[in-house]
């Protein structure tokens, strides 16, 4: 597990160096920029952690669905509706109630958004990859329409909601003028631990993984794959929604058009890299956070940000190749 991650990071550096070389820049200097920009200063580290937070929660959303044998590509859409619902609710209730109700609204919206995909999969065996992709598109344009009309802050030119009151925002657990670490990161870590324990220690978690590993055997063991599919999609969707709510309450303060840079999609890679344990989502979301934050620093340096995306893509391919290598050698 650990050596795999180390090999992965080394591989990432090598691929990045190669890619930079192709772009006619100095690889060593670029790597320095990347790591300095993501881990070099306390402020950079805080920024990396900020990037890693939504990736962590979205990664867990994808991960839990994967354990039940479902590929939830719809986390991006669930994040958007979650963020939108959270903003709408949290604006109305100042203080702590606004935060709590906002989180609940975000999770409920995310779960509701995953519900059709879950129902279609469970009772009509329609493939969740197709339905969740479609729901992503609906979510993108639906929240876009809302934020340019009914829920738009009319006092501003931006297509955005009004800001959530400062008293309703998620608190900082560590704060200096340059370095800020939000409670949402703690929340994400607790979720990873909670999810890992739930899968390992509860009968419900056992049954969910039984369906994910062998649907037929699970049926013979008295488990209803339909119910488990619904449960997994509901948990996954509400985690996606939570990621959106956290993004509003911790960092952005409002919902706006073009809210997510694709956290829900990056989360697919996060969960694939994580392997079979929820704990694996922690380092893999951090790795994605480093590359994302470092990529921004590279861009300022004149190297296209797209290069880190290329590196991530390569990494996911390598991870998938390692992961599925067994299939052929066992046969």
């Amino acid at each position, binding site marked *: 597990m650990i050596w795999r991650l180390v090999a992965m990071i080394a591989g990432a550096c090598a691929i990045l160096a190669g890619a930079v070389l192709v772009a006619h820049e100095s690889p060593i200097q670029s790597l320095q920029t990347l790591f300095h920009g993501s881990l070099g200063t306390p402020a950079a580290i805080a920024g990396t952690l900020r990037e890693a937070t939504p990736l962590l929660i979205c990664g867990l959303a994808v991960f839990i669905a994967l354990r039940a044998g479902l590929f939830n590509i719809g986390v991006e859409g669930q994040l958007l509706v979650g963020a939108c619902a959270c903003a709408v609710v949290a604006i109305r209730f100042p203080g702590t109630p606004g935060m709590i109700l906002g989180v609940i609204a975000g999770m409920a919206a995310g779960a509701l958004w995953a519900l059709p995909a879950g129902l279609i999969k469970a009772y009509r065996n329609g493939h969740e990859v197709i339905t969740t992709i479609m729901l992503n598109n609906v979510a993108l344009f639906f929240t876009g329409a809302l934020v340019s009309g009914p829920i738009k802050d009319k006092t501003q030119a931006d297509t955005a909601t009004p800001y959530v009151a400062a008293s309703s925002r998620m608190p900082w657990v560590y704060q200096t003028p340059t370095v800020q670490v939000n409670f949402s990161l703690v929340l994400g870590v607790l979720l990873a631990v909670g999810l890992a324990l739930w899968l390992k220690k*509860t009968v419900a978690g056992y049954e969910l993984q*039984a369906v994910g590993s*062998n649907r037929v*055997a699970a049926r013979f*063991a*008295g*488990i*209803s794959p339909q119910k488990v599919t619904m449960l997994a999609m509901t948990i996954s969707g509400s985690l996606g929604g939570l990621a959106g709510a956290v993004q509003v309450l911790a960092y952005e303060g409002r919902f706006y058009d073009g809210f997510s840079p694709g956290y829900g999609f990056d989360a697919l890679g996060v969960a694939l890299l994580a392997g079979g344990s929820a704990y694996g989502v922690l380092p893999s979301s951090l790795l994605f956070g480093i590359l994302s934050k470092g990529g921004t620093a590279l861009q300022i340096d004149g190297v296209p940000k797209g290069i880190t995306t290329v590196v991530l893509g390569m990494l996911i391919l390598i991870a998938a190749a390692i992961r599925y290598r067994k299939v052929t050698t066992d046969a």
Partner: protein
Amino acid sequence: MLGITKKFGAVTALDRVDLEVSQGAIHAIVGENGAGKTTLMRILYGALASDDGTVEVETHAVKFGSSREAIQCGVGMVSQHYGIIPELTCLQNLILGAEGGPILRNRAAEERAKMLATRMGFEFNWQAEASTLSPAGAQKLEILKLLWREARIMILDEPTAMLSPADANALFVSLDSLAKDGATIILVTHRLPEVLEHCSRVTVLRNGKRIDEKAVTETSGSELAQLIVGGALDKPEITSSFRPGDRLLEITNLTVKGNRGDIALKGVGFNVRSGEILGIAGVDGSGQRELFESIAGLIKPVEGAISFAEQDTAGWTPAQRIAHGLRMIPEDRHAQGVVENWSLDANAALGLQRLKPFARGGRVDEKARHRMAGEIAERFNTKHGGLNLQMSSLSGGNQQRFVAARSLCLNPRLVLAFQPARGLDIKGTQKVYEGIRDVCRSGSAALVVSFDLDELLEQCDRVVAMNHGRLLEPEAHQAMDRDAIGRLMVGAQ
């Protein structure tokens, strides 16, 4: 084959095994589960590489890197699990992988297929989908596939496991004629009567070693059985301790649709009393599967009722039925009985995960599970390298032992056993049936499906037959009459 040695990790599967088979012979390979029979055959067939030893085919030393190379040298194998794709036609299945060029010439292929079939005395509708084939038909198609590829050495792994006695006899008639034409047939089997009746020589393997090789005319069933297990085999006297108890399972007028929408069960009705082991004979696909699945609550009947201990089960979920003491040894342990990439520990709870001691108030009790896994593995001597290892590290027979033992723990009240001894050797078969008899002695009951009528007659208290979705009981004076039940199996009265 000379001095064949194969190691899997620390386990020596084959230890300097010699095997010599003469042309035109039907040569049997017998031995317990894990004796190395299948491994040896897979090496001959090129599906596995040996660590040491040489293989010679028709005086040429060969080294097969793959089964494709083996088939080019005329060595072919039909495995226990047929490799037939149900959606393709019989003809497409026949030529699959040996089309003879990038362009299909269906008419020429069909001509040749017909010629081969006629030579063997088989009849096929070549344009029909392979899903319409009976198990016996599928077996015949597999043999034709070998002939199509011009195999001169054919390896058959447990060819009669799924066949009715009549089909099995027909199979041996065609194997005889093949051998007379000069083909060499190697037969892996557990059934000694087949060896004695149809084979010319027999090799006995035990624990990866070649124990003996004999001409069939110079040996006997009891001698072979002794060689197989290594020591005298005292045949336990099976005492039917069955005293009819209360009615435990009552099925009336059960009609069920199969997964293709056809009627799979037609007005089936019977009772099982507590303490009773009821055997269900019949060729594969007679409705046994649907019967079990409807009792387990996995498919909803169109009509009819199933009551368990005088309670109607209509509204019960599969999980509720398990809580009431229903257990199943499923037909296909790979697909239905285990999660292959889980540990033995985790698999021990599968199906029982909501029952004590596996669960305590919705929580998994890992200590109890580990203890239970140990007991389950112990019960029928499942050979394993550690309870924390993946289920896939076990051989098929050992998985079967594990699954059978699991279904008998935690006080079952009704055991549905689909071929409970599938792939098990003599000792293993005895142990599993003894286990079933043990739970029945304490007032439970068991339904046993097997395609081996003799096994049922030997092990069950009562035997009924299924044919085309109907369940037929022999008349009272022929209750355990082999011929009478055999006739019911094929639908004749």
